[in-house]
């Protein structure tokens, strides 16, 4: 028998894996767009309702004792109420619609149509209001309301919607300024520089003077704002896709390689998983003995695997996939490592100590030799394999250790490769040459004294 060390993520070039990811992502984006549409329409409805309530409670009483021309025309009231009714209608329709984003488009167009009427008094306002230029809305930065509406339409995460919102908002704002300029013949356009003195400023800042730079900059700002938001949504989608792809790269790698090795594989081009022949140390860790509870208790089994994983990764080892049977770890399989056998030995001692602390009796078998190590997956799975007689031999050593109830059994080959000091060898017992299935000559084994 040979065994593998590590089952990696589906290959990125595999069309089936990619299709599944794309479908999952498209569904996720669609769901977020639907939720975003409802939030946007709901938020917009709240603002409109607030505007109407504020108008009824504050503006009407405030203006009731003012000159007649200062009071709000009834047309604006009708518009405000219509605005509110449409908010509720759009929300309800979008809630039931299969393509709610289209209702966001409709709502957006209506928003800017009504806002432009409120700001620039196109058709529904009494004639008296057309006697004054509406450049005051330019001075007072009423365009910020347009910024707010555009920003709300970011929530569905739909780039085209924002692009349209920005375009319509800029067009409506520019159109409103031009309209009021044309409808108010005494209006003058100031298109030049001034010397920043109070007198020069006062000469320019008149209600019938449209400061060209200010109007153009407002329109440009609106366009830029929408453009940045559209880029933000686009980059946001790319961010999500990149995060998912990174997860695809990392997910299964993380289960089998130590974290620093995962980072190196994912972040650099230097670490190759191509198959090659390497001197490798193999450690097999058996399922705890005499613990009948563990064979029924998955939670206990998971905690057992957790201990193995922590120790193997701490000693730069590579893990095989957990499946309910003894765990295999390899050392030096990814890169040439002169300390591979030493690490395997230290990992075994560390595991023995950890399981002893948990009052669990386990057996381990260690061997070292040349193996073929590298990536060799099927069509859908990438698998990092360690193939060689050493793998078979270390599994047999584990069987021998379990039969003799020895904690750590290691071959002479590993002992030589690990380069143990004389002081360390004092703790080893020589088991002699032991017959191992598949080996004509047997193997000289050692055990670590408890």
């Amino acid at each position: 028998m040979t065994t593998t060390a590590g089952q990696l993520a589906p290959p990125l070039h595999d069309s089936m894996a990619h299709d599944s990811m794309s479908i999952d992502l498209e569904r996720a984006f669609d769901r977020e767009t639907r939720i975003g549409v409802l939030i946007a329409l709901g938020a917009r409805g709240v603002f409109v309702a607030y505007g109407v309530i504020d108008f009824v409670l504050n503006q009407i009483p405030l203006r009731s004792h003012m000159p007649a021309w200062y009071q709000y025309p009834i047309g604006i009231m009708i518009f405000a109420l219509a605005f509110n009714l449409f908010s509720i209608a759009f929300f309800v329709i979008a809630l039931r619609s299969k393509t709610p984003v289209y209702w966001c488009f409709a709502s957006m167009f209506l928003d800017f149509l009504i806002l432009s009427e409120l700001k620039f008094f196109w058709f529904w306002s009494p004639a008296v209001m057309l006697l004054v230029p509406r450049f005051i809305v330019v001075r007072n930065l009423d365009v910020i309301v347009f910024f707010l509406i555009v920003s709300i339409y970011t929530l569905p995460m739909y780039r085209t919607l924002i692009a349209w919102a920005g375009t319509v908002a800029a067009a409506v704002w520019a159109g409103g300024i031009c309209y009021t300029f044309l409808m108010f013949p005494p209006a003058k356009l100031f298109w030049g520089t001034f010397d920043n003195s109070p007198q020069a400023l006062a000469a320019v800042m008149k209600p019938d003077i449209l400061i060209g730079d200010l109007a153009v900059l407002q329109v440009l700002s609106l366009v830029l704002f929408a453009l940045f938001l559209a880029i933000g949504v686009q980059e946001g989608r790319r961010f999500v896709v990149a995060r998912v792809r990174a997860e695809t790269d990392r997910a299964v790698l993380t289960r089998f390689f130590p974290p620093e090795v995962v980072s190196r594989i994912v972040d650099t081009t230097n670490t190759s998983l191509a198959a090659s022949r390497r001197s490798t140390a193999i450690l097999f860790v058996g399922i705890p003995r005499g613990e009948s509870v563990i064979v029924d208790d998955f939670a206990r089994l998971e905690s057992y695997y957790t201990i193995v994983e922590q120790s193997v990764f701490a000693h730069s080892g590579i893990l095989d996939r957990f499946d309910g049977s003894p765990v295999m770890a390899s050392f030096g399989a990814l890169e040439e490592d002169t300390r591979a056998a030493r690490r395997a030995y230290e990992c075994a001692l560390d595991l023995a100590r950890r399981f002893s602390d948990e009052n669990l009796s386990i057996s381990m078998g260690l061997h070292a030799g040349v193996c073929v190590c590298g990536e060799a997956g099927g069509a859908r799975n990438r698998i990092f394999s360690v193939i060689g007689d050493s793998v078979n031999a270390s599994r047999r050593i584990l069987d021998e250790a379990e039969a003799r109830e020895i904690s750590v059994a290691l071959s002479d080959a590993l002992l030589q490769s690990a380069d143990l000091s004389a002081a360390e060898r004092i703790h080893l017992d020589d088991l002699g040459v032991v017959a191992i299935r598949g080996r004509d000559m047997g193997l000289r084994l050692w055990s670590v004294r408890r």
Partner: protein
Amino acid sequence: MNLGRQGALSAHPAFWMRAAVAWSGTAYVFLRFGTAPGIRVLIAISLFEMLDVSLLNRRIAAIPFLNILIVGLQIVAISALFLAPAPFGFATAIPVATMVQTPFALILLCMLASTNSPPRPWVTLTAGVLVTAIWAATRLVALADPHTITKEQIVVAHYKTPMALLEAITRPYYFNVGIWRFNTGFIAVVVVTLSFAAFRTQRLARWSAERQADRDALSAYFSPQIVDVILGGGVDRLAPQARNVAVLNCDLVGFTGLAETLSPEAVAQTLRIFRTIAENAVQARRGAILTHQGDGFTAIFGLTGGNDPTVGAALAAAREIVQAWPLALDRSMVPGVPDVGAGIDFGGANVGLVGRGRTLTLLMLGSPLERARRLQAATRNAPTHILLGGAAAAQLAHEGTPLERDDVAVNDIED
């Protein structure tokens, strides 16, 4: 293999657009307002751009606090241009009451919008709070100026015509607190909206990554179709429990010895072919690959429920592998054809998925696993490539699938 670059974001388009806007703005001020104002803008924009370039550094970009600090400094640099007195800013020449009517606030909002690319919710929120605070502070600065006129000093009733009133409220020193409050509120709502949008994008990324982790983990065992079914119903439906399953253990007999004589690439390529055949045969019959063990594998059938035959499916998969393997093997790389040995048994076992996301693992505990492994090992001395355990043979008869062909033998292995 380069996994890192496939997941990396390209240079942010927002960075290039910010740079284009910043330098175009500088050129605009030079051309329209002359050298002295142009130099002030040039200094502010240079500082802004230096800070922006520093954000392209991956190490700096990875530290949220530095991101917030740099964007904050950029906002302060641009705000100072409008609100600070000479020689740095224009506030001495133009009253703040007038300055708040310039596109100052709009420029800050555009900056804020550009911080959402890529989504950094805390940067957007903190920068937005700073923008709102700076805008709020303009009131204090404006009202501190003794020349400032407020709405309280304007009595609407005194003005007989709309134009007269408009004349009064468009003077350079007129500061409308009501409008200012209104705009402050709108700016704050824009800040909250943009931050919320960034938070939603981050949350979507996190959720999608978790889902992908589940998919990747499940794909190691199941076919894409079964993965879809499991993800649709939640991984809990495969929680560990006692189930009757058929286990297929399959191995390339003698391949380990052969591998010693082959090139590493030939070993890897041979395994790839074998594993592809195995995955296709097993997963096409709703089976799960529990684990690959070097040149062998273990598969489970009957895990996904339903009335599908379990042993019948395992036997059909084993037959397909035995037949397809000699035909698919690349003879130019491997001398001879390693035999396939397959052991199948049936019985009760604890099987299920444990963990979440990256740690999602299919575990199986029970005697059929070991019996199938021993049956497979016994094929070395058996006349057929496939050995069926006694329980599996009985289950096969129960499923109504007669053996018929002589490519399978029954071997009743004891536990």
